């Protein structure tokens, strides 16, 4: 397996307003992604981003690096650690490494901790 290219690191800001917009756009109204009191009542430290929000950011990263939409044939990850979004917002950092078979290994972190496990995309040729 040869490493074809290391991609540039990109930082994405997440605010609670983004999560509200995403809840509406995706049809996932779970209040732990919007309401601090509900999040705390189920033992979370604060509002957390939808796992799917973070995976969507990983897909956005691939689109931006590739420079055109619709090239992702496969994308997936394990939601290993929640992305906590305090009132002032947070940042997620994404970096990828493309193998010559079209697979892109993605590292997604928040506050230096990995938040997605085995995050991988496959590009169509």
């Amino acid at each position, binding site marked *: 397996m040869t490493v074809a290219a290391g991609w540039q690191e990109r930082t*994405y800001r997440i605010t609670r307003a*983004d999560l509200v*917009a*995403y809840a*509406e*756009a*995706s*049809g*996932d109204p779970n209040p732990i992604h919007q309401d601090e009191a509900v999040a705390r009542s*189920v033992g979370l430290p604060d509002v957390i981003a*939808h*796992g*799917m*929000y973070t*995976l*969507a*950011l990983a*897909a*956005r990263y*691939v*689109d*931006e690096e590739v420079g055109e*939409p*619709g090239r*992702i*044939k*496969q*994308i*997936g*990850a*394990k*939601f290993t650690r929640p992305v906590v979004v305090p009132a002032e917002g947070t940042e997620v950092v994404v970096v990828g490494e493309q193998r010559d078979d079209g697979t892109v290994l993605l590292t997604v972190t928040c506050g230096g901790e990995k938040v997605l496990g085995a995050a991988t*995309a496959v590009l169509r040729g």
Partner: protein
Amino acid sequence: MPVDPSLSGRTFPPTQDFEVTEERVAAFAAATGTPYAPGDPAPATFPIVVAFEAMQGLMSDPDVGIELHHVVHGQQKFVHERPTRPGDRLRAELTVTGLRQIGGADIITTSSAITDADGALVCTAEATLVHKAGE
């Protein structure tokens, strides 16, 4: 309450047709800051909108025994046969591909076939749901 042990292998009725519009795709892209121009294919995770409907069907089925508030999304993967585009009319049919118990949690693996108006497969959405009953 534990999840119905005969759940594995079961296929649920398909969701209602979902009309992919420019507006829906643009709103989804905007929420995640994803570059999007009219006519572009939808972002790669957009089919979650349809897959999520199918998962709701599984989770709200009273015979299954899943308590909605105890479900965590553990894993998600999309395999695209082609990009989803505005104008597509999609439906999802969910099959439970596996069920196992780890440390008091039910690990439910699912695969949703997302098809277009011609019945052609557009995307397979695989989700792992972690259900911690009675916490």
